[in-house]
Structures are given as structure tokens and as C-alpha cells.
């Protein structure tokens, strides 16, 4: 520790400007597949000071820069300026609490990065409560340098969980479809848009990606054979197989919470109706029998219900039915167009697309009270998908004539746009919490 302090003492004067440079690089398009613009913020944000870690400068990526961006993106934190504090603390013993209290910080993050002889990095961090002058969390990680971003997300998750009581989603991934010219690519990236990987690429449209509950597979619909066919693809191996290729359209895959089955939509018996199928493609069973369109099934987290879109009442509205089949109950009544239901992780509400006089917006509705709240004001919003902690909703929207992704907090207070450099982005799906969280 002493060695680190003296090392830091020497580079201290250069730390702040270099750190700012790191942030600038972080925001540049060359480094980011998606960049994020935040509008608004939660009413009561937690003021937190994140001190650049000792030994951070030699790393190609600013670890605390990633943590800063994660927490800021959530809309629930306000970053307290750390410039001008000398020396900057890196362990609890260095911290002069009244300084941080004076700056308005409720929480303080300090830490260090040390290079091990084998090339790996030893990262230590502590989350401190400024008011009680006590430690809330302390972790150390020994990682390969390539895991620096992933570790930063883990640290942000710990901070978020400790200070809000809710699991963070910074280590999760999102899936979406990008249309580049005439190519369609299904991509998966980190929740902050970095590390995008193409899962499958086609000259024909791809829609409706759906994460398996364990995050290892994606179901999706591809038109590559000339019509809609459902595939399931492993993210680890890239191997894929057909889940459903019956006569007519095969679409709208939705995993059961236990991952054993999917609800899908087929037109093999005429109209678009809901069916159940085992994840291995066996055991097809028809679930809905209506004289109308039934589509967009979505399971409640307890597996008991399937919400779906149907125009059996004359206009598309959201209904739910028992996952075992049976009578459907209408859930939406306001307006003539309500589609794309997506249950919140606690099962108490659902997000959907609501058409009002001003266009197609993302809305949420409480199931018990029936109360609806419109969260967005852009005119062509689609495909709402809850973050696995239930705090944000990812959706597709349009800006400047092309498709982009955006996220809105469940109270509508914080909005962010995720830009890709080129192409049309659509069909977002937020992946599950990772197992080790």
C-alpha cells in the first residue's frame, strides 16, 4: 500500500487531466459501437464521488471512466467532482471524510490497479459511506487485462446494488437487429453498447430476438428462406437449428421462464394464433382459438400467464390468458392500438406500445390497478423490453430518418439514446442478469 501511495504521489499532478482525456476517448465514436446521450435525470440522485484508481493511468481503458458512465446512465446517481483533492485517496486510511462531505458526496469509491508479474491485473475497490465513515463494500479481482471493462461493470453493479438495494444491470447484454444497407445483422453487445458482436447476418429481414432465461441462446425470426421461420442459436458455439418451420409464418418466439418451452405464433391453421412448443422443437400444441389475430406472446415471470396482442375486439389490444390455455382477459382499454406486451421482472406491470394522437409511444400499466402511464413522446416507438432489474425499458425509436435504440426509466424521468454509427437499429431485447451476479 505504501508503495502505491508513493507511486501515486509522483503522478498525482497529472492524474486529473489524463483522466479527463480518458473520458474523451471513451465517448469518441472510434471506441464505441454505440454512444449514449442522456436526457433528464431522476428527481433524487445519490451524490457519489469516484476517485480515479491508483495505477489506472497505464491501462488502455479508464476503469473508473466506465464505472462513472454506468452509474450516470442509470439516472440514479450524480457524480461529485474529484478534481483538486490532493492527494487523492486510494484506500480507506487515506480518506479525509470532511473533505468529501464538504463536496456533497454521500458515497465515495476508492481503489487501485496493480500489474502482477504474470501480466494479470489485481484490482481492489472499496465503497465508503461518507456520513457514517464506514465501508459498505470491498472487493478484489485478479483479471486478464482484456477483462477490464467487464470488471468495471461488475464494480458498478456492486455500487448500484449497495446504494439502491436493487441489482445493477451493467454486466448484462442486449440483443438487437441492425440493418446496414441491404444486410440485416443480429447483434449482441454489453448493455452500454460496447463489445458488439454479430450473431447472424442475412440479406433477408431478421426480427423478434428473444433471450433464453439463462442468457445462453437467442431465438429469432429470419426470412432467409422467403418467409418467417424461427431459429434458436447458441451464443457460445454459434450453432443454430430451426425451432419452427411450419406451413405459413412462424414468428414471435417467447421463452417460458424455466427455459423449457416457447410460446410462438403460427399461421399453419389459418390465422395468426398462439402455440406452445418445447425448446427442442417437439410437442407442438395450439394455445389460442380466436377468430382474430393473436400474436406477441410474453410469459409472466411466474410462468402462470401469457400476455399477448389480439384484435379480437376490433382493434389490437393486450390480453392475458393462463399459460395452460383457457379464457383470455383484456388488459388494455385506453385507445385503439395497444401492442407488444412485455412483463416487468416482478410481474406486477407490463410495458407496451400505445398509440395516441401523437403517435406510438412506450407505456407501462399496473396489472392490479389497470393504471397506465405513457413514458415516451417520440412518434414511432416499438419493442419495449424491461431491464432485468425492472428499472429501465429499452425500446426502438426513430431519429433523423433512421432507427435507433433508447431507454427510459420506469418513472419516465430518465431517457437515453443509444446511437450506432450507421445503419438502422431495431428490435432490442434486454438479456437476463448474469449468473454470477
Amino acid at each position, binding site marked *: 500500500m505504501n508503495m502505491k501511495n508513493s507511486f501515486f504521489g509522483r503522478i498525482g499532478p497529472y492524474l486529473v487531466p489524463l483522466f479527463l482525456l480518458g473520458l474523451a476517448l471513451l465517448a469518441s465514436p472510434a471506441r464505441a459501437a454505440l454512444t449514449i446521450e442522456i436526457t433528464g435525470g431522476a428527481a433524487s440522485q445519490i451524490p457519489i464521488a469516484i476517485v480515479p484508481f491508483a495505477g489506472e493511468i497505464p491501462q488502455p481503458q479508464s476503469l473508473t471512466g466506465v464505472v462513472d458512465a454506468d452509474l450516470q446512465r442509470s439516472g440514479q446517481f450524480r457524480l461529485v467532482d474529484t478534481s483538486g483533492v490532493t492527494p487523492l485517496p486510494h484506500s480507506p486510511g487515506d480518506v479525509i471524510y470532511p473533505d468529501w462531505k464538504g463536496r456533497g458526496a454521500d458515497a465515495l469509491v476508492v481503489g487501485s490497479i496493480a500489474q502482477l508479474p504474470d501480466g494479470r491485473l489485481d484490482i481492489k475497490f472499496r465503497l465508503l459511506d461518507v456520513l457514517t465513515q464506514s465501508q459498505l463494500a470491498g472487493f478484489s479481482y485478479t483479471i486478464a487485462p482484456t477483462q477490464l471493462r467487464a470488471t468495471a461493470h461488475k464494480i458498478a453493479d456492486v455500487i448500484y446494488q449497495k446504494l439502491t438495494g436493487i441489482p445493477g444491470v451493467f454486466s448484462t447484454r442486449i440483443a438487437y437487429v441492425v440493418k446496414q444497407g441491404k444486410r440485416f445483422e443480429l447483434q449482441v453487445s454489453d448493455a452500454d453498447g460496447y463489445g458488439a458482436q454479430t450473431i447472424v447476418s442475412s440479406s433477408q429481414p431478421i426480427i423478434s430476438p428473444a433471450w433464453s432465461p439463462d442468457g445462453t441462446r437467442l431465438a429469432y425470426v429470419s*426470412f432467409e428462406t422467403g418467409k418467417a421461420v424461427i431459429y434458436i442459436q447458441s451464443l457460445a458455439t454459434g450453432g443454430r437449428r430451426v425451432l419452427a418451420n411450419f406451413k*405459413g*409464418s412462424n*414468428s414471435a418466439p417467447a421463452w417460458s421462464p424455466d427455459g423449457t418451452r416457447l410460446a410462438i405464433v403460427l399461421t399453419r391453421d*389459418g390465422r*395468426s394464433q398462439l402455440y406452445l412448443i418445447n425448446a427442442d422443437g417437439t410437442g407442438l400444441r395450439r394455445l389460442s382459438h380466436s377468430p382474430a*389475430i393473436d*400474436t406477441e406472446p410474453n410469459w409472466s415471470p411466474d410462468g402462470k400467464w401469457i400476455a399477448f396482442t389480439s384484435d379480437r375486439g376490433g382493434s389490437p389490444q393486450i390480453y392475458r390468458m393462463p399459460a395452460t390455455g383457457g379464457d383470455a382477459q383484456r388488459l388494455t382499454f385506453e385507445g385503439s392500438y395497444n*401492442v407488444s406486451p412485455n412483463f416487468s421482472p416482478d410481474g406486477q406491470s407490463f410495458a407496451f406500445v400505445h398509440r395516441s394522437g401523437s403517435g*406510438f409511444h412506450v407505456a407501462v400499466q399496473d396489472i392490479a390497478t389497470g393504471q397506465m402511464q405513457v413514458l415516451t413522446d417520440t412518434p414511432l416507438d416499438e419493442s419495449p423490453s424491461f431491464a432485468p432489474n425492472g428499472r429501465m425499458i429499452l425500446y426502438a425509436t426513430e431519429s433523423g430518418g433512421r432507427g435507433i435504440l433508447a431507454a427510459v426509466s420506469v418513472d419516465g424521468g430518465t431517457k437515453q439514446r443509444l446511437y450506432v454509427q450507421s445503419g438502422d437499429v431495431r428490435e432490442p431485447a434486454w438479456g437476463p442478469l448474469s449468473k454470477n451476479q
Partner: protein
Amino acid sequence: MKKLMLSALLLSFLAACASTPTKEKAAVEDKSVPATAAEAPAPAQAQAAVSQEVAVNPLTDPNNILSKRSVYYDFDSSAVKDEYKPMIEAHAKYLIAHPDAKVTLQGNTDERGSREYNLALGQRRADSVKQFMTVLGVPGKQIETVSFGEEKPKATCHDESCWKQNRRTDIVYQGE
């Protein structure tokens, strides 16, 4: 320079063909073939092909109602408007008279709303035309339906001028 000469050749060729619209169309299509096609025999071939096609194929004769192939809809509707019924009836008659002919009815929607609902709506649009043809006596085995939903827009702007073109069922004959 070579390009200029080729353009001049094409221009004079266009002028020569300008008397009838069908020939002009053939000449325009010729632009995509290699430069050698601008030599004398090529236009003659194109001309022959066009006149022959007009003689035998009512499906592509612009003066024949069978060359009309698209049914257009209101937003979130699959109701076939009266103005398209004579056209669908003509195709039904043709299919009955040509039992070997087959059509695919391709349903499409505009970009608004959800992609999956639009996929279902496109299917219903195609099915509504199929149902009409079936009622008129066309055997079901001559008709296939497919929905592209909002995925293959003919017009790509984001207002009604494009949307109305994309709310559509296309009648496509096998082999076209």
C-alpha cells in the same frame, strides 16, 4: 470518351424508339447490359422479345387489367376496397382458365406499430385476397400466401406518402 460515345449511341437509340412506349421501356432496360449490346443486333432482339411478349402474355400487357397486381388498404385494415374487386376478379378468371398457373399473394404493411402484429396483419391482407379469389371459384391449390409484414417496404420515407404504398397485397405469378 468511350462512355460519351456509348451514351450518344444509347440516346440516338432511345430517340429512334420513342414512338411507342413499350419499345422505349425495352431500350431503357437495355442500359444494364454490357457495352457490346449497343451494337445493331441487340435492339432488334429486344424489340422482338417485347412484341412477342405482348402477343402471348396478358399478365404483362399494360393495357390489360391483369397487369395490375396490387391491392391497397387503410391503416390496420385488411378490408378489400371495391375499387380493387374488378382486378381481383380478372385474376380469378385467369387462374380458373389456366389451371397450371399459380399465384403467391404477398401481404405487406406500413412501418407503424409492432413488427409482429404487422406480420400477422400482412398475412390477413394476403388471406383476404385469397378468400375473395376462392369464393370466385379459384382452387386453393393455385394460391399461396405469404406475409412480409413491414419488413420489405416498397417506399421508405416516414410519412403517409410512403405508408399508403406499403399497405399492400401483391399478386405474383409463379415464375415471375
